């Protein structure tokens, strides 16, 4: 059945061409070269000419190399045994564990019927106040982190992975530095989260074609777990590398580029991955958190620009902090009305005050005299940045809200905040120093924690 072809007629970029019959579009093949065996996928058929994309690249493939068609398309094994393991972009083990071969599932499957989707309604708690209070992450949301190169986006992803209330974490790494990959793995392991994680990692040194498969393979596995009633968080870093892989391959295939060399279908390619985020009615969910590095810190670059049209909001990571301005979770309204009565009020008030603080800073830098109000804002702004915006802060939403009230109470009089009197009565803490908190112990603990962080 599996006939072996021996004559490779053309090798260009990562694409080889053989003459063969009865080959299906998208079918996989095994290619033997001098450097080893690689998988390849059929990308074009023209009469008996079959073009294949070689996953490991075409280096070392000779014109008399062997090509054996496998009769099925790209798939991945789906079992519980995946948990705690690390694979590369073609699904081969990257750790020292055994290769898995049972229960193969196809990757890049069909899209979810919109009529079967439901309005998302469950919040994913991450323990990071900048997310939980100000831009809540919602189950089934797709959200990118826009960051310039050099920002600690991978650290942020790892923190969210550790702290988020989900059942399974799937990390899809694309173009990762090998150090970053090891750091991810070690962080998960040290914190005991590796056993509920699966890593599909393509490092910068691996073949480009494998980079292109990472999101599909990660999301195919995620989908199966979600159908088994699991809440899955998929982390994809970095989607710009994925887009660059698409660009590289498209150009090698002599496709006409559209914008800055990217292929014309960049939007559709990105959308078909991001749209896998879903909340299945009566089953689990997939939430996607992706990193999109912005070349030149330019949000109008084709990758962040197309991403912004697809995703439900974005986080801007700037100077190691989630920027409150510009960051947006489009779905937060679905959940932040149901958490605690003061959630929305704290969210808007603290941001408004922080915006005023920014204005004051500008005034200060221009040498204007500071009023009493300005001085209050300066204290507030510093505390806000230190105790709320710092990404190492890990507290529950409720204690973060309490902390918010305490910061405001320490800096302002109740009426200066513009919060409705009903909420002030209910939540405004007694003056600092006098005990009046409902849970003084917890508050004290938080304070020490915050103090530790501040150092």
């Amino acid at each position, binding site marked *: 059945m599996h006939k072996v072809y021996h004559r490779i007629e053309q090798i260009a970029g990562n694409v080889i061409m053989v003459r063969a019959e009865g*080959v299906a579009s998208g079918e996989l093949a095994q290619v033997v070269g001098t450097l080893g065996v690689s998988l390849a996928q059929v990308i074009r058929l023209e009469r008996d000419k079959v073009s294949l994309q070689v996953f490991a690249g075409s280096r070392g493939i000779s014109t008399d190399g062997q090509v054996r068609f496998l009769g099925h398309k790209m798939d991945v094994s789906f079992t519980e045994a995946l948990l705690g393991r690390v694979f590369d972009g073609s699904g081969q083990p990257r750790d020292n564990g055994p290769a898995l071969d049972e229960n193969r599932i196809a990757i890049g499957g069909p899209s979810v019927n919109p009529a079967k*989707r439901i309005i998302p309604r469950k919040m994913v708690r991450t323990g990071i106040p900048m997310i939980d209070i100000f831009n809540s992450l919602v189950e089934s949301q797709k959200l990118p982190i826009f960051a310039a190169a050099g920002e600690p986006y991978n650290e942020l992803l790892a923190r969210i992975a550790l702290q988020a209330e989900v059942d399974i974490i799937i990390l899809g790494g694309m173009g990762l530095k090998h150090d970053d990959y090891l750091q991810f793995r070690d962080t998960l392991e040290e914190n005991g989260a590796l056993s509920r994680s699966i890593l599909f990692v393509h490092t910068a040194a691996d073949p480009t074609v494998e980079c292109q498969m990472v999101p599909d393979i990660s999301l195919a596995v995620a989908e199966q777990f979600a159908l088994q009633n699991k809440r899955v968080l998929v982390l994809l870093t970095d989607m710009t590398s994925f887009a660059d892989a698409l660009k590289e391959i498209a150009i090698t295939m002599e496709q006409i*580029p559209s914008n800055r060399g990217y292929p014309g*279908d960049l939007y559709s390619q990105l959308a078909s991955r991001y749209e896998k985020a879903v909340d299945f009615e009566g089953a689990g969910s997939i939430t996607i958190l992706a990193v999109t590095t912005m070349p030149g810190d330019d949000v109008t670059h084709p990758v962040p620009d197309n991403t912004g049209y697809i995703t439900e909001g974005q986080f801007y990571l700037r100077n190691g902090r989630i920027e409150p301005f510009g960051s947006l979770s489009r779905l937060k309204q679905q959940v932040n009305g149901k958490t605690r009565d003061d959630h929305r009020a704290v969210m808007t008030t603290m941001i408004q005050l922080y915006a005023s603080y920014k204005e004051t800073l500008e005034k200060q830098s221009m040498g204007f005299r500071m009023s009493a109000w300005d001085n209050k804002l300066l204290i507030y702004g510093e505390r806000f940045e230190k105790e709320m915006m710092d990404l190492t802060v890990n507290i529950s939403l409720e204690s973060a809200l309490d902390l918010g009230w305490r910061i405001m109470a320490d800096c302002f009089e109740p009426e200066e905040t513009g919060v409705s009197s009903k909420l002030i009565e209910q939540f405004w803490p007694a003056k600092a120093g006098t005990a009046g908190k409902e849970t003084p112990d917890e508050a004290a603990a938080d304070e020490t924690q915050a103090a530790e962080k501040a150092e």
Partner: protein
Amino acid sequence: MSENVGTIVGVSGNLVTVHFDKPVTQGEVGFVRTGEIALKAEVIRIRSDNAELQVFEDTTGVKVGDPVDFTDNLLTVELGPGLLAQVYDGLQNPLPELAEKTGFFLQRGMYLKALDREKQWDYTPVARQGDEVTAGDTLGTVPEGIFAHRIMVPFGLTGSYTVAETTEAGSYTVDQMVAKLRDEQGTITEVTMVQTWPVKVPIKAYAERLRPTEPLVTKVRIIDTFFPVARGGVYCIPGPFGAGKTVLQQITSKHADVDIVVLTACGERAGEVVETLREFPELTDPRTGKSLMERTLIICNTSSMPVAAREASVYTGVTICEYYRQMGLNVLLLADSTSRWAQALREMSGRLEEIPGEEAFPAYLESVIAAFYERGGVVKLRDGGLGSVTIGGTVSPAGGNFDEPVTQATLKVVGAFHGLNRERSDARRYPALHPLDSWSKYPGVVDTTQVAEARSVLHRGNEVDQMMKVVGEEGTSIEDFVLYLKSEYLDASYLQQDSFHDIDGATHAERQQYVFAKVNDILAAKVFFPDKDSARKWFLQLTSVTKDWNRVAMDTEEFKQLEQRLDSMLAEVSEHA
């Protein structure tokens, strides 16, 4: 019709090359048979004995040598009673029924009938035996929701016919014969309630096309007053991501003063369609008191669904609009977003290896966009009635830059331009239409001289604002400063609107006329202040009173009180004269 089967000789993405022996038509639909399934495809280019077809599904698994059945039909939609309240994909497959069959995922090669075959409709004949009829004439009606759905002589019939037989009034399914027509040669054609029509051909069974002059009230103040849309007009909403395009479309679909709204979600987020899908059945249409869904039809080909079907979806939408227009109804098509449709064209053009135009869009992009928008319009039907199709398309320009080809090609053919602006949306000034850049050629609901005056206040206020950025507030004269405050007042109290507020979110035409006249009086008034701070304070207070005024119903006591308060405030500062 003889069997016409071709053979696949090449596959590249969703483009297949097919060798054929019998005649093949450009635009013809073919089915690619691979294994158990048949995938729908459309002929887009023919070269000698090879036809190239774009497949509306993923082509994985297709082999060289697989057969292709040509159907001899162009890509068509089914037209008949039962279209309203439906949710279709770009090829008119009903999505809820698909979900019943295939579960969570959209399986390829699954095509269902667009209309319910079991449902009985109460048919009342209108045409009598012996009547002379032509394409588009009414044979009878069935009630569909609040409308009398006309069963018409199929649009594809040419020449004049005589009604040879009509059925009795009664209950029928859509496939049952309702009339027999005899042409001049004596050939009999049987007519059912369903007819099909090729999506890319405009329906022209009307007497004449008229100029759109009647305003279409959307209840969004900045649109109706400043940048109005006419019934039968076409307009576009370009804007960067996050500027509120989709929210604006959703608001329009709720409040627009038309009979039927067709929403085409073309390559956008599935989540947004879901909101409409789950929300609309719960909302009541203030015009009819019935569920809003009864006047709505959703065509949904979201971003992860096949690209070729995305291109078809806007045509499917507009064809259904034209069908209802033939019944003398006013229909609104909202297409979100036309850029995704243009990108679908670009993808196909790339596969065909055509010589690219700007940003790799095909050279025919402009003519295709123009032809699409030209399908909007007001028409006079043969029975003297009027019907209209209004088209509103969003555009998602790359990087929010309006100089790109899709925005520019669209601007050439539309009658109104609602440019959304990132700075305005960042400043939470919703709806984020740019009041200086946007334009409209259609007549609005308020007096044009008043609008011209207000617009001049906006312009001059903006100039003062620019100047103040250079010379500071200190270097600005109090007269200029007041002008600036007036333009800010107009912006905050009239142009901005809280679309989630029950009353403020929907301002009907009479109210707009009344409130705008008042705002205009304030803008025109000569007001005097001792210094800039008191001027700013007064205007801030005025703004907040006007905002409160916007939030109370017009027929209440409170409305009058707030209006008196505005008058007295104005009197206070005018007295100094």
